[in-house]
C-alpha cells in the first residue's frame, strides 16, 4: 500500500503544485523519489508530530493542500489535540496518512499496534476516515482524498499488501464496494483485512452458502444504504476489521443496524478490547486472535448453521 500511495501521490503532485508532503521522520526508502522530484514541497519535520500537524494547519490556512505522514499511533494519538483543534475545527485541507494500520507492526510491540485509531478519528467532526483494503483501493482513496478539500485520515497497511481487486471503477467517498453478491449473508470488511475476508468468503461459498462481500474503505461517511440493504436482503451481517471491537467499523455498522430495525443476526470480528501481552508477525497474531481466514470462516459457518 505504501508504494501505491507514494506513486499515486507523485502523480497528483505533478498536476497540483499546491500539494506539500510532511513526514515526522518516517518513510525511509519510500519518500526519496518524492523528495528528489519536489524538494521544495517535502519537509521532514523531525520527530515532532504535534508541530507537524500545526505547521500543516498553517500551510493549509495559506491555501496549500497538505499530506502528513507517520506510523498510525504517532500521527493520530500523539498529536490528537492538534488534529482536532488545528485541523478539524477549521475544516482544513490536510490529509493524515497513517501507515502500519492494525497489527502490521505486530512484533514491534503494543506501542506500534494501532487498535484505536478508527474509533478516535471517526469521532472528529469534519474528518473523513478511509481504510483501503489493497493497493488499488489505496490509489483510489488517495485520489478521492486529494479531490476532497477537508480533513481526511487514511489508514494504510504496510509495504507488501496483497492485491484483491483486478480493476475498479470510480470510487467515491461514502460508497461501499461490493466484490461479490450474495443472499444468505453479508460480510462487511474494512482495511487490510480485505484479503483475509475474501479468502474466508471463498471458504464459506464452498459450502454452498451465498455470501455477499462488501469492502468498506470509507468508514466515514459510511455507506448506510449498502448496510441497510444487506440487512434486508440477507439474514446475517458480519463485520471484519483489524481494530478494537470498540468504535471501529463494527460499531459503525451496529449503529446503522440498531437504528434501522434490522432483524439480521450481527457479529463483529475485531481485536479484543485489550493490549496484547505477546508479540509476533501480523499473520501469527491474527491466528492467535481468531482473525485469520480459516478461523473467521469456521466461526461464521458455525453461527450460520446454528441460527439460520
Amino acid at each position, binding site marked *: 500500500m505504501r508504494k501505491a500511495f507514494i506513486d499515486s501521490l507523485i502523480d497528483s503532485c505533478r498536476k497540483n503544485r499546491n500539494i506539500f508532503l510532511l513526514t515526522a521522520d518516517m518513510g525511509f526508502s519510500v519518500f526519496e523519489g518524492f523528495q528528489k522530484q519536489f524538494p*521544495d514541497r517535502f519537509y521532514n519535520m523531525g520527530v*515532532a508530530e504535534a508541530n507537524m500537524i*500545526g505547521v500543516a494547519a*498553517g*500551510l*493549509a*490556512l*495559506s491555501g496549500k493542500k497538505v499530506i502528513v505522514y507517520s506510523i498510525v499511533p504517532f500521527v493520530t494519538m500523539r498529536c490528537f489535540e492538534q488534529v482536532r483543534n488545528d485541523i478539524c475545527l*477549521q475544516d482544513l485541507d490536510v490529509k493524515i496518512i497513517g501507515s502500519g494500520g492494525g497489527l502490521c507492526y505486530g512484533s514491534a510491540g503494543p506501542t506500534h499496534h494501532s487498535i484505536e485509531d478508527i474509533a478516535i478519528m471517526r469521532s472528529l467532526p469534519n474528518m473523513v476516515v478511509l481504510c483501503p483494503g489493497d493497493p488499488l483501493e489505496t490509489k483510489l482513496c488517495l485520489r478521492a482524498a486529494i479531490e476532497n478539500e477537508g480533513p481526511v485520515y487514511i489508514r494504510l497497511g504496510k509495504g507488501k499488501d496483497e492485491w484483491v481487486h483486478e480493476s475498479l471503477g470510480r470510487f467515491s467517498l461514502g460508497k461501499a464496494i461490493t466484490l461479490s453478491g450474495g443472499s444468505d449473508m453479508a460480510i462487511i470488511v474494512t482495511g487490510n483485512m480485505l484479503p483475509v475476508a475474501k479468502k474466508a468468503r471463498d471458504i464459506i461459498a464452498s459450502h454452498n452458502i451465498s455470501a455477499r462481500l462488501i469492502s468498506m474503505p470509507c468508514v466515514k461517511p459510511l455507506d448506510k444504504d449498502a448496510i441497510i440493504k444487506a440487512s434486508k436482503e440477507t439474514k446475517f451481517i458480519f463485520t471484519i476489521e483489524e481494530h478494537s471491537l470498540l468504535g471501529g467499523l463494527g460499531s459503525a455498522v451496529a449503529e446503522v443496524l440498531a437504528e434501522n430495525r434490522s432483524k439480521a443476526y450481527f457479529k463483529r470480528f475485531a481485536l479484543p478490547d485489550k493490549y496484547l501481552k505477546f508479540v509476533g508477525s501480523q499473520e501469527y497474531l491474527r491466528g492467535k486472535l481468531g482473525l485469520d481466514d480459516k478461523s473467521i470462516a469456521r466461526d461464521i459457518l458455525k453461527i450460520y448453521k446454528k441460527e439460520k
Partner: protein
Amino acid sequence: MARNYSDFSDCNRVSKQVRHAILLMHAASGSSHIGSSLSVADILVALYLRILNITPSNLAAKNRDRLILSKGHAASALFACLAARGFIPKKTLGTYCMNGGILPGHSSFGCVSAVEITTGSLGHGLSVGAGMALAAKHDRLKHRVFVILSDGECQEGSVWEAAMFAGHHKMNNLVAIVDYNKLQAFGRIKEIMDLEPFAKKWQSFGWSTQEVDGHNFRQLLSSMNKLPFTKNKPSLIIAHTTKGKGVSFMEDQLAWHYKSPNQQQLNQAFFELGNL
C-alpha cells in the same frame, strides 16, 4: 503606515478604549481571564495600530500579515482591538460569552473573520504560525506572521517543537511575542515551573530576542520596528507585563485570572482609567 517615534497618543487613547471594553465584556458576562486580557492589551494595540498590515478590507489578501493569539483565553482583548479598528461593530462585543453570542471566551476561527485560527488550548499557535511563515517563504511573499504566547504556555512541549522548527528553517518572517506577566493559573511561574533563563532558551533554539516593557509603547514599537532582529532568524519579543494592568486592585493579583468585576469594582476601574 504611521511611523511616529515620539507621539503615542493614538496608542494611549485606543489602549484606554480597549481596557474599557474588556472591563464591560467581563462584567456583563461574568467570565474569567480579565487579568490576562488587560495584560496583553497594549501589545495588541501596538500591533494593530502601528505594525500589522491587516485591515478590514485586505483580509482576503494573500500577502497581508497574520496574527495568532495563541493565548486564546485573552480573546476579549483581541475582540476589543478588532472593534476599535473597525473589523467588527462595537455592539458585537456585547455578545461576548453570552447565551447565543458569537464571541466565545477563547478566540475561535470564524467567530469574526479576522481570527486566523481557533486557540484556547495552549501550545498550538506557534506551530500554526510557523506553517503560515513557511507558506509565505515558499510563495515568496513578504508579509510577517506574529504569534502571541502566554508565559505559562511556554511550559507546553509543543511550543519548543515549533521553536526548534522555526529556528532550524531560519524563519525571519515569524515573530513570537510572549506576554510575560509572571503569573499562571495556579500561582507564580517562578514557583510552579520556572522559565528562566528564558531569553537564553529561545536563543539556543536559534531565535533572536529582545526584552521590553509590554506596557510601554515607546519600547514595544521601537522593538517591533526593528523586526527581524537578525537577518536569518525568527524573532522573539519578551514583553514584561503586569496581569490586570491598568486597574489597581487587579494588578498582579492571581484572583483576577478567574473573577469578573461587580458594579462597584467596574465603577472604580472606570474611574482609574479616566476619560476615554
